């Protein structure tokens, strides 16, 4: 999957993961919120990218890589402040239907079972990418 220009603003890199791709976002000035903490908007952006990456991989595995998808909405929960560390994120497709995909994503720093933030996204799937 090719990340959009916005991912570069966040400094996000992507690698193949077990199941969905694993995304990493380093701490730095460009993602800073209140002093010493990652901006909630940057965390939300990272989670959205992780959800999109998970969906793209799932569509490809289903032989549907030609379809288009648009986000309908996102709900983000912030559990902890993101500190001066690398933030990781991975999405999971909960259900892939013919018209709607329900996807969740989690972000963490030191340990995966201590999430920094999580998101749920609903996507509208269109017949083909050009539609």
């Amino acid at each position, binding site marked *: 999957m090719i990340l959009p220009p*916005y991912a570069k603003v966040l400094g996000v890199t992507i690698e193949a993961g077990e199941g969905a791709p694993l995304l990493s976002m380093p701490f730095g000035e460009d993602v800073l919120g209140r002093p010493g903490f990652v901006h*909630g*908007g940057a965390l939300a952006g990272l989670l959205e990218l992780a959800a999109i990456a998970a969906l793209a991989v799932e569509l490809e595995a289903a032989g549907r890589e030609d379809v288009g998808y648009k986000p309908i909405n*996102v709900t*983000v929960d*912030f559990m902890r402040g993101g500190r001066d560390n690398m933030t990781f994120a991975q999405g999971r497709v909960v259900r892939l239907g013919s018209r709607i995909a329900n996807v969740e994503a989690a972000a963490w720093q030191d340990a995966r079972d201590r999430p920094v933030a999580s998101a749920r996204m609903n996507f509208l799937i269109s017949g083909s990418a050009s539609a």
Partner: protein
Amino acid sequence: MATPPPKFHPRMFFSARRYGHGGRLGIDYLAHGPDWCELVLPFSPDLIGDVGRGVLASGPVVALLDMATSVAVWLKRDAFVPHATLDLRVDYLRPAAPGRTVTGRGECYRLAKRVAFVRGIAHDGDPDDPIAHVAGTFMTTGTVDA
């Protein structure tokens, strides 16, 4: 007796705030009232999320609405009390037109002691035809004097 929290001045806050993620996105102050604030997100090719259609990524719109609603809470509280976003839900009503500046308007419609309830919209020129709708909550992170 504890020192009262400092008053909050959005214009000063943003003139001093050309740093961090908001600064990188180019988010700036537009207007405010007693319980609301409007901020702008100028279009930039850097912020494209859909290369084929040239559409702004949704992440910067979430960041804009997070900041506009956050400022609305400080305005309604009439004090700069530190808080953290508890949750945000954003509905993407339609894509932003390529090249347009996006305005985010946040409102704090209920202020409890620790939790603030917010809502708002983002539009790309016409507030009656918004591109996104937001609802969320913030929670104070320090101690609050009633």
